[in-house]
């Protein structure tokens, strides 16, 4: 009997937390049907915001920019982070470069984002205008490079955690069997690291999609990512279009999650394992 009440208490708590987690999202979804001009003052029910949001070139292109930057920076961060993670996992304890890299990456994590933002802008300008590396004048390149910087540490640590428990004898065996280092890397090391790599890529994709502070410093017109569009709209009158597009993106995310879940079930990995790899 006591056990049952306690379990009921836990379930109640769980439900409450879920309500807390979803309340503001529900509000945004509800207000996306507002026909008024300002998001927060409800005028009536309708799909106006969806129609004008999807027909608004600027909004659509900002969402596309966000997706492009997220894919680009996830790729870049994943490549760099995988190399770094594998290297760190293999490093002998106390090697200077391993300690240094770990320290630096940890520093990137504790640096307030605003400091990154402030530092990046003049640096990109120096590279682009003074050093004539003109592709640094491109808004998308700036977004990708800066976002990747932000998530390299995350990917590296995830991959290192994944590789830490792996026996190095597997790689030695591969070498003994006559494989070149490249083959070993490709056929043995990478497959072992794969779940960590996937988790890291997912994380850096999310971080980039969500990034506001850093992007607002380095962004350029024509390459305004979605969160920066919202952030500048916050200061003005916020329109229901923002809520409508967010709702569409939420639905797409849920769809993507469901797909990922399905694929994982097929391949025999549980979502619990993926989450574990992410946060370990």
């Amino acid at each position, binding site marked *: 009997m006591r056990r049952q009440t306690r379990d009921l208490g836990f379930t109640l708590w769980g439900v409450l937390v879920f309500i807390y987690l979803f309340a503001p999202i529900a509000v945004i979804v509800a207000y996306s049907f507002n026909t008024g001009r300002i998001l927060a003052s409800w005028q009536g029910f309708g799909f106006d915001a969806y129609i004008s949001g999807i027909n608004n070139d600027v909004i659509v292109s900002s969402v596309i920019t966000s997706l492009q930057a997220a894919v680009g920076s996830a790729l870049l961060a994943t490549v760099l982070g995988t190399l770094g993670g594998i290297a760190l996992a293999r490093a002998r304890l106390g090697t200077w470069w391993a300690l240094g890299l770990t320290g630096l990456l940890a520093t990137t994590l504790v640096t307030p984002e605003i400091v990154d933002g402030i530092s990046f802008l003049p640096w990109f300008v120096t590279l682009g205008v003074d050093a004539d590396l003109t592709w640094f004048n491109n808004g998308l390149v700036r977004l990708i490079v800066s976002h990747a910087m932000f998530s390299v540490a995350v990917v590296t640590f995830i991959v290192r955690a994944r590789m830490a428990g792996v026996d190095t004898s597997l790689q030695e065996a591969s070498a003994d069997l006559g494989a070149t280092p490249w083959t070993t890397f490709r056929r043995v090391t990478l497959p072992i690291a794969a779940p960590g790599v996937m988790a890291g890529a997912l994380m850096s994709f999310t971080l980039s999609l969500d990034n506001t502070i850093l992007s607002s410093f380095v962004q350029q*017109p024509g390459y305004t990512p979605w969160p920066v569009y919202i952030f500048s709209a916050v200061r003005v009158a916020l329109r229901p279009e923002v809520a409508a597009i967010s709702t569409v993106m939420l639905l797409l995310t849920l769809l993507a999650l469901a797909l990922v879940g399905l694929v994982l079930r097929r391949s025999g990995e549980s979502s619990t394992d993926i989450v574990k790899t992410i946060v370990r």
Partner: protein
Amino acid sequence: MAERDHRVRFLAPRSEAPRIRRQLLSAAGPSRRAFLTGVGLAGLAGLSACGQTGRMASSPPADGEIEAKLNLYSWGDYDDPEIISEFSDTAGVRVQVDSYGSNDELMAKLAGTRGTSGYDIVVPTGSRVQQMIEHDLIQPLDLTRIPNFANMDPNFTHQEFDPENRYSICKAWGTTGYVYDRTVIDRELTSWQDFIDAAGKEASGSTAILEDPWELTAIALASMGEDVNTVDEAILEKAKTIVVDDIAPHVRAYMGNAAQGMTQGGLSLLHAFNGDARQGLLESDDPDRWQFVFPTPVANLWMDNWCLATGAPHPDAAYAFINHMISPDAALRNVDYIGYHVGTQGLKEEAADFDFPDIIFPEQEILDRLVPSEEGAGIQPRVEIYTAAQTRSSA
């Protein structure tokens, strides 16, 4: 002082040269290096060896062929989106609008990116136009490409900050006042003194102040009966006391646009630009609750201006856009949307049936007492007052 021998190169109209030289030399103290690090260019001097730090990326020449894109960097919600999309459709130009909350933000962005900001049109306030010319942040306009310039009311062209309209064309002008909730403040407020008084009494904890150091300081200066542009340290010190002790403790929020604050609720006294207050009234469920005041004895008369950013990648589209925005029809509809006079001819007569016309077009006696803000030497102490006020409010 040996530093003065180094040459600093400027791209500026010949007529401006003596003034720029004067500014450079009279700044008495800052050496070339300190000057070069100018707004936002900081520290890069140490990086680039040849002292070409001030270099700006340049704009492609306007060749009469309208580009497919245009990037506008302006104050938030400052143009009717419908007019913009009309322009997009007819001219075949995709217009990207980004917004900033202060002139400082605009200048930091332009100076920091040195011509690679990507923006074509920017909309600085008149009080900053001189500074922006000096720092090569905006480039001269070719008025022959803006035929509708003839449509401008001569009262709003040839302003003191740009006598020949070489760099700027009036975008909109307005003044500053405040709006209060009559259900909370049950008496008539008319002056800045009343504002401070109400903030301390009925509206304590529900007052909103504009995110603008000059405007905040002007409340105190105007209530003291002083010149709102004063640079006198003793007077500013007194104004600081008023701001920090009599206003700041009662402030609920510092915001850029009063309209949002009026619809969100929880605020009963809002420092506001006239057009924003009108927009708030239009959005409000119960507009009769609110009262807008053009306060005595004095307030800001500001003018925002269309300018072409240095390094603008789409100059032809920019000219076409400005020309479109000041055409009689677009201008009139924009007034209804933003609630500010946009400086074209005959607006007051044609706009008579708009909502709250008296807020858009203040009476002559009100206009007579307004003073344009000056943001030169006096801005530093005002920023300090503003920072002190914000800190006091959060305590």
